[in-house]
């Protein structure tokens, strides 16, 4: 069983479109994250939720809107996609400041 699963794995879309990435964890963790990894491999935190509540919102454009319907899911919706949004997006979860488990990543390409 996959602990943290995100879909889709690949996403190619045109500028200006709206897209969503879904994430689910079956570990019973309270905290979930979204990270963006650029071409230089830097892992930048975007959002963090704890028990469905937003606790961290880094300086991310408001075109990005996370939604957590329950503590096992954290989805990411992106409006009006731009070329600079191309990256790999990782979902992760953790519990009580221990190790984080990552999803397989979603490679987003905006053309």
């Amino acid at each position, binding site marked *: 069983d996959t602990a943290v699963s995100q879909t889709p794995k690949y996403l190619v879309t045109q500028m200006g479109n709206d897209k969503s990435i879904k994430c689910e964890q079956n570990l019973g963790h309270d905290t979930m994250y979204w990270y963006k990894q650029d071409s230089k*491999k*830097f892992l930048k935190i975007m959002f963090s939720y704890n028990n469905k509540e937003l606790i*961290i919102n880094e300086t991310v454009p408001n075109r990005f809107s996370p939604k957590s319907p329950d503590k096992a899911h954290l989805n990411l919706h992106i409006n009006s996609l731009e070329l600079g949004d191309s990256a790999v997006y990782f979902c992760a979860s953790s519990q009580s*400041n221990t*190790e984080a488990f990552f999803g397989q*990543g979603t490679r987003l390409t905006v053309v």
Partner: protein
Amino acid sequence: GQQVMQIPQYQHVQEGEDFTTYCNSSTTLSNIQWYKQRPGGHPVFLIQLVKSGEVKKQKRLTFQFGEAKKNSSLHITATQTTDVGTYFCASVNFGNEKLTFGTGTRLTIIP
């Protein structure tokens, strides 16, 4: 905000040689975690250090947490081709569970 720098950014070593990556913070860290990301893969947790001066070993890998809790290192003895990947340090802010990653060190092995 908390910044965690890693050096070197890239390291190429001959198979069998040793490898070390260093993690430095501008502020005192409550803990340090290390992750490995294989090419095309996702970050995978290796270890967590919490105590000042702590040293832990996993087979050929040795992890250290500095006395002042502002730096850490990962040392690999006698590298193998399976060690290829990007190594990240990370730290959790216990107050808000924000998991911040270092800039990463990309290791390549020359067979």
